[in-house]
C-alpha cells in the first residue's frame, strides 16, 4: 500500500515549494510539485509606463532581483526594436555573470551540499589527512591543515553547545550519507569559505549596479553608468580594477574549489548518475550578447527533444521565432481560470483557488509547455544544448569534469549520464567555470572599447502609439526566463513572466504529463521513507526558487520542514 509523504516547510506564510510523493516498497511511485502562493504580481504592471517595468519586476523575487530587471528591459527593447551600445551590453553581461556566479556558489554550498555531506561526522576527521587528500585533487591554497582544523573547531563548538544551531535540521547519520569524515570536513571548510566568495561576486554587482540587492543602473536602451576613467563618482579605472580583482578571486574559487568538490561528490556517489532524470526535453535561450543588435552570443541556446543530443535545434537569437511561437501555459492543474493553453502575450492570471487535490488542481504554478510538451530548463539544459552543438567552451569544461570525476576514482561518465541528479550539479559547476572565464573576457572587451574612446551607454527609447509586443529573455541561474510584454498607447497592456522554476516545478498539464520535478522523482529509492533525504537531493539539484515571495517572519517556531506521512 502506497504511503503519501508531504514535504512542506510551513514557516513561510506564502510562496514556497511543496512536494508530495507516494512511496511504495521503498521507492517513489508518484509525485506532485506545487507552489503555495498566488503569483499574480504581473497584474500590477498593467497601465504603467513600460520604461518603469523593470523597477517592479526586480521585486518579483528577493533572491533573483537582477534577472527580472534584465529580462524586463530586454522585453521593451525587443518590442521597440531598440539596439543598445556595446558598453551597455558588456556592463550588463558582467552584472549577469557576477550574479550567476554568486547564485551557483550559494546553491551548491549553502542550499544543497548538506544533502551529501554529514556535518556530524566531521569531529571524527583527521585534519592532516584531510589536507593531504585535498592537495591530491586541487591546487587551492586554503586547504591547509590549520584552515581545516579551524573549520572542524567550528563544528565542534556548535556540537558542544548542545544545540545544533544552524545544523539543527539535517539528516545526520542517514544511511544514504556515504562520505568519509575527511571528505565531509573538506567540503564543510569550503562551505564556510563559500560565504566569502559569494560576497565578492555580489560586490561586483554592487559596484556596477550602484546598489544591491536592487540594482539602480538599468534603463531601457542601455545602462545609466557614467563612464569616466578618472572620476570617483563614475565608472572609473579604479573601480574597473577592483572589479577585475574580485572576478579573478571568484574565478579561482569556482575552478579550484566548487568544480572540484562537485566532481568529488559525483565520484563518491556514482549511483546518483542513474537517478533523477525525468523530463529529457531541454530548453535554453542564447545569452551574453556580444554586439549591439543581439545577433551573436557567448552562450548558445536551443531545444533537445527526448534526450536526443544529435537532434538539437539551435536558436539563432534570444527571441528566435521558433521559441516565440512554441511557448504556452496550461492551467488544467493550476489554481487559475481557463480551459486551454494560452500563449504568454494573451496570457491570463485569474485565480480560482480550490485547495490541494492531486487529481484536479494542486498548484499556483502554471504549466509552461514547449510545442505542447514539458521542458527542463537550467544549467543542465544549457550544457547539453551547448555540447550537442559543439560549443567549444562548453565542451572544454564538460570534458574536464568527466576526466576529473574519473581521476578521483569515480566512473567515466558519458554525456548521457548527465540526465540525472548528479548531472544537474555537474552542469551547474561546468557553467560556473564557463562564466568565470567569460567574466574576464567581457571585462577586457569593456576596457578595450572604452580605450577606443567610446563612452556611449544608452540609446533613447521612443514609444510608438500603435500596439507592439516583445519578449525579453535571459538564461538565468535557474534556466530560461522570459518576460512577455504588450504595449499600447505608451502603457503596458499585458505582461507575463514565464520563470525558470515555473518550467521545472510545473504541475501536470491537460494531457496528464508530469512536470520536470515530478518526473525526476519517479522510481527514486528511499532508504527511510520517514526521512526522505533522497527526494530532497533530486529536488535540490534543480535549484528550486519558487516564490518571489512574501517573507513575513513567523516567530512562533512552529514545527518546520516536516516530512508528514499520510
Amino acid at each position, binding site marked *: 500500500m502506497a504511503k503519501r509523504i508531504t*514535504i512542506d*516547510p510551513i*514557516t*513561510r*506564510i506564502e*510562496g*514556497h*515549494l511543496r*512536494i508530495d510523493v507516494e512511496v511504495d516498497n521503498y521507492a517513489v511511485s508518484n509525485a506532485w510539485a506545487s507552489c503555495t502562493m*498566488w503569483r*499574480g*504580481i504581473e*497584474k*500590477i504592471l498593467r497601465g504603467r509606463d513600460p520604461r518603469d517595468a523593470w*523597477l*517592479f519586476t526586480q*521585486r*518579483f*523575487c*528577493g*533572491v533573483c*532581483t537582477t534577472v527580472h530587471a534584465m529580462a524586463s528591459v530586454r522585453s521593451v527593447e525587443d518590442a521597440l526594436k531598440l539596439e543598445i551600445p556595446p558598453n551597455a551590453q558588456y556592463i550588463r553581461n558582467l552584472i549577469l555573470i557576477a550574479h550567476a556566479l554568486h547564485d551557483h556558489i*550559494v*546553491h551548491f554550498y*549553502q*542550499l*544543497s551540499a548538506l544533502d551529501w555531506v554529514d556535518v556530524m561526522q566531521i569531529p571524527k576527521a583527521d585534519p592532516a589527512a584531510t589536507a593531504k587528500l585535498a592537495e591530491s585533487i586541487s591546487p587551492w591554497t586554503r586547504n591547509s591543515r590549520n584552515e581545516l582544523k579551524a573549520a572542524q573547531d*567550528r563544528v565542534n563548538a*556548535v556540537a558542544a553547545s548542545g544545540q545544533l*544551531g*544552524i545544523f*539543527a*535540521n539535517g539528516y545526520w547519520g542517514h544511511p544514504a550519507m556515504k562520505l568519509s569524515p575527511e571528505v565531509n570536513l573538506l567540503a564543510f571548510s569550503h562551505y*564556510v569559505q563559500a*560565504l566569502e566568495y559569494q560576497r565578492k561576486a*555580489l560586490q561586483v554587482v554592487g559596484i556596477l549596479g550602484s546598489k*544591491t*540587492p*536592487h540594482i539602480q543602473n538599468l534603463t531601457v536602451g542601455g545602462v545609466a553608468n557614467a563612464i569616466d576613467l578618472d572620476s570617483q563618482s563614475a565608472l572609473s579605472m579604479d573601480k574597473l580594477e577592483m572589479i577585475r580583482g574580485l572576478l579573478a578571486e571568484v574565478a579561482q574559487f569556482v575552478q579550484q574549489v566548487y568544480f572540484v568538490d562537485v566532481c568529488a561528490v559525483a565520484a563518491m556517489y556514482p549511483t546518483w548518475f542513474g537517478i533523477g532524470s525525468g523530463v529529457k526535453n531541454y530548453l535554453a535561450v542564447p545569452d551574453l550578447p556580444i554586439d549591439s543588435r543581439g545577433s551573436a552570443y557567448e552562450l548558445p541556446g536551443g531545444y533537445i527533444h527526448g534526450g536526443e543530443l544529435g537532434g538539437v535545434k539551435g536558436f539563432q537569437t534570444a527571441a528566435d521565432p521558433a521559441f516565440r511561437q512554441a511557448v504556452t501555459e496550461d492551467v488544467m492543474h493550476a489554481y487559475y481560470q481557463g480551459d486551454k493553453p494560452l500563449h504568454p502575450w494573451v496570457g491570463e492570471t485569474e485565480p480560482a483557488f480550490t485547495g490541494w487535490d492531486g487529481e484536479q488542481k494542486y498548484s499556483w504554478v502554471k504549466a509552461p509547455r514547449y510545442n505542447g510538451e514539458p521542458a527542463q530548463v537550467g544549467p543542465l539544459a544549457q550544457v547539453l544544448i551547448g555540447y550537442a552543438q559543439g560549443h567549444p567552451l562548453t565542451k572544454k569544461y564538460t570534458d574536464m569534469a568527466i576526466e576529473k570525476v574519473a581521476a578521483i576514482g569515480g566512473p567515466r561518465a558519458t554525456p548521457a549520464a548527465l540526465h540525472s541528479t548528479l548531472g544537474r550539479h555537474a552542469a551547474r559547476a561546468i557553467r560556473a567555470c564557463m562564466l568565470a572565464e567569460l567574466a574576464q573576457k567581457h571585462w577586457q572587451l569593456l576596457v578595450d572599447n572604452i580605450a577606443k574612446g567610446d563612452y556611449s551607454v544608452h540609446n533613447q527609447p521612443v514609444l510608438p502609439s500603435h500596439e507592439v509586443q516583445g519578449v525579453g529573455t535571459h538564461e538565468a541561474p535557474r534556466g530560461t526566463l522570459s518576460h512577455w510584454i504588450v504595449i499600447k498607447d505608451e502603457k503596458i497592456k499585458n505582461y507575463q513572466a514565464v520563470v525558470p522554476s515555473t518550467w521545472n516545478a510545473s504541475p501536470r498539464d491537460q494531457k496528464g504529463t508530469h512536470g520536470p520535478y515530478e518526473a525526476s522523482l519517479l522510481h527514486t529509492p528511499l532508504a527511510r521513507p520517514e526521512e526522505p533525504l533522497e527526494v*530532497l537531493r533530486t*529536488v*535540490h539539484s534543480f*535549484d*528550486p*526558487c*519558487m*516564490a*518571489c*515571495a*512574501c*517573507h*513575513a*517572519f*513567523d*516567530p*512562533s*517556531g512552529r514545527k*518546520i*520542514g*516536516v516530512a508528514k506521512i499520510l
Partner: protein
Amino acid sequence: MRTALIGGIGNVLLGDDAVGPYVLRLLESKYEFGSDIELLDLGTPALDLTHQIVGLKSLILIDSVTSDDPPGTVILYKKDDILRVAPAERLDPHSPALSECLLTAEMLGSSPENVLLVGIVGAGFEPGSALSESARNAVGPAIEAILSELRRLGYAVQRKSSAGKLALWWTQPSEELPTPS
C-alpha cells in the same frame, strides 16, 4: 565606518509586506543619522542577509510578521527570540530566513551583539494592494521603538528641520500614503 544597520525587509508589491521598506523610507526622509549607521531597503533577501549582518555591532530590522495578535500590533523581538526559531528545511533559497542568517553569523563568530526585530502584524499580503490601515497605524510606534533603541545604544539621530521627499516609487499617485507626523 558602519557599525549599525537599519534594514527594511519585505516585498513592496505584496500589501502589508511593504511595511518594512515603508518605515525605512520614512526614517530616511525625517531623520539624520550618524555615518556609523546604514539604512537599507533589503527586499526579501533570504541567505544574502548574512552578508549584510556579519561583523555589525547593532542590527535593527523592520518586517511584517504573522502572529495571533491583531493586525497592526508592533512586537519587538530580541536576538534570543529569533535564534529560538529552528532553521527550516531548505527546499528553496527563500526558505533560509532571519534565524538562519543569524545562526550562520553565530557559527562564524561574528554575529551582531545587539539585535532588534521590529515586527508589525500584517493584515493582508495580496499583490498590488496598499498598506492596510492597521499597518499604517503601527508605523508611528514602530519608529518610536527604533529611535529609542538607537538612543539606548548611544547612536546619534536627529530630526531634520524639514522632512525630505518620501520616495515611494511603487505606489500609484492615487495610492500615495499619508505620512504620520
